């Protein structure tokens, strides 16, 4: 039986710049022009000061694992051959949290606080997904 493809994001007005950045290998964050707060995922307005003005800023691409799960039973048929895999929340050094996969590691070795670095998984011609792997020899927290 043929497996369905993994779902890819639908690029819209609010997220276009973000996904274009990923294609170039840049992890972009919105920074509110009025109050300076970083935010993720992309949204039209700052939830703090309600300003709709923002700049796109290139994030360092480094952060730490805030929480994670090891998915051992696929909930979507496209992931049936991927299990076990890690879904994690990474706290970026700039502050915002991002949902991602932590890759290139035995899932049982992952810990909260582990230092990670972004890489870009070319999922299609139009989409590169930011994923993370551990920074060699570096453990924060």
């Amino acid at each position, binding site marked *: 039986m043929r497996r369905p493809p993994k779902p890819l994001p639908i690029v819209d007005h609010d997220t276009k710049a973000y996904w274009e950045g990923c294609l170039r290998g840049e992890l972009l964050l919105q920074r509110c022009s009025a109050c300076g707060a970083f935010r993720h995922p992309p949204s039209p307005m700052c939830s703090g000061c309600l300003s709709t003005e923002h700049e796109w800023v290139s994030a360092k691409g480094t952060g730490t694992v*805030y929480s994670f799960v090891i998915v051992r039973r696929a*909930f979507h048929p496209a992931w049936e051959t991927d299990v076990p895999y890690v*879904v994690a929340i990474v706290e970026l050094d700039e502050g915002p949290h991002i949902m991602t996969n932590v890759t290139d590691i035995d899932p049982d070795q992952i810990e909260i606080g582990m230092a990670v670095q972004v890489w870009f998984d070319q999922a299609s011609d139009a989409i590169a997904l930011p994923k993370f792997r551990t920074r060699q020899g570096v453990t924060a927290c």
Partner: protein
Amino acid sequence: MTSTGCAIVGSAETEVGRALDRTGLDLKLDAATKAIRDAGLTKTQIDGVVAWQPRREPVPNHSAFVAEQLGIAPRYVADISLGGAACASTVVSAVAAIRAGLASTVLCLGGDGKSSVDGKGRRGRLASHRQDFRNPYGGEGAPILYGLMARRHMHEYGTTSEQLGAVAVACRRHASLNPNSQMRQPITIADHQASPMVVDPLRRLDCSLISDGAGAVVVTSAERARDLPHKVVHILGMATACRYGDVTYQASMTTSAAVEASRAAFGAAGITPEDVDLVELYDCFTHVVLIQIEDYGFCAKGESGSFVEGGRIEIGGQLPVNTHGGLLSQAHVGGMLHITEGVTQIRGDGGERQVENARIAVVSGQCGELGIHVTLVLGSERT
């Protein structure tokens, strides 16, 4: 104690189970007609209908459609689509409507044929902006978001898998005493530990059931309730609270809108946690019960793991939790059966699972990974 001035006068559950081969509409109409009969009313006396809107198979104009099927033309209808907070919200909406004079007697309804109509068509479809940043990572599935919270609770407070297991064991024991439950075979902590990891750190026995079934209650004024057949179950207090719609990007994953909802509802009812005889806490996953026990003030933050050990949350213990078996072991009907069970306990009709001298029962509903919370305080007396 004080009161909202409203009471639950009718209550009913359908049969529950996996793949009953009944439609959601069939189940809901079954629950609705039984609840109206239980209240000692006829259908034409129902002038409000508030229905839980099933998320997987939404029905346009759901409450109005139910009313049409019941052959009534109510003054007030509302559909509520707040996932696991929706069933408790139907009662909140009913009380608000009655107090505003929009209706006098409101039917509140929840449930569906979830396991018979599997919702397979939705797989792989990205329906919201947030899903664009979740599903491409294989992040679809409630155990994933909830599992991230469980992991943080373990990290911050040292909570163990065995402590999560104590919640599963308690719910199963209570379900074993409930003739209308899906899972009646008692389990032990060892059984919990032997159950496979689904989304590590959550095991299969940390996850709630997939069920067909429905429940309904009828709400009216406390004055009117006195003329009806059953012992009056007063809605002493209620409150809702919202912190967020999705836990993914929150700065804390271990405390929730249950703090604000429970404080406000307890304040409205004029009670403290010590006054509560039993709780029916929304239990889509075991650790969700732990976080609520803390946020409601039944123990200090971070101490729920040891609190639930040793049978403290079982019937006969200090704080019986989910006396019907909950979503974990009775059935997952969106939380409506937490409400019907609260009514059963206050009426004293719990049979083998009756909590002695049950005078105050607290019922919760929640969704958005505890970002949206509803607390109902039900009680046998009003002063």
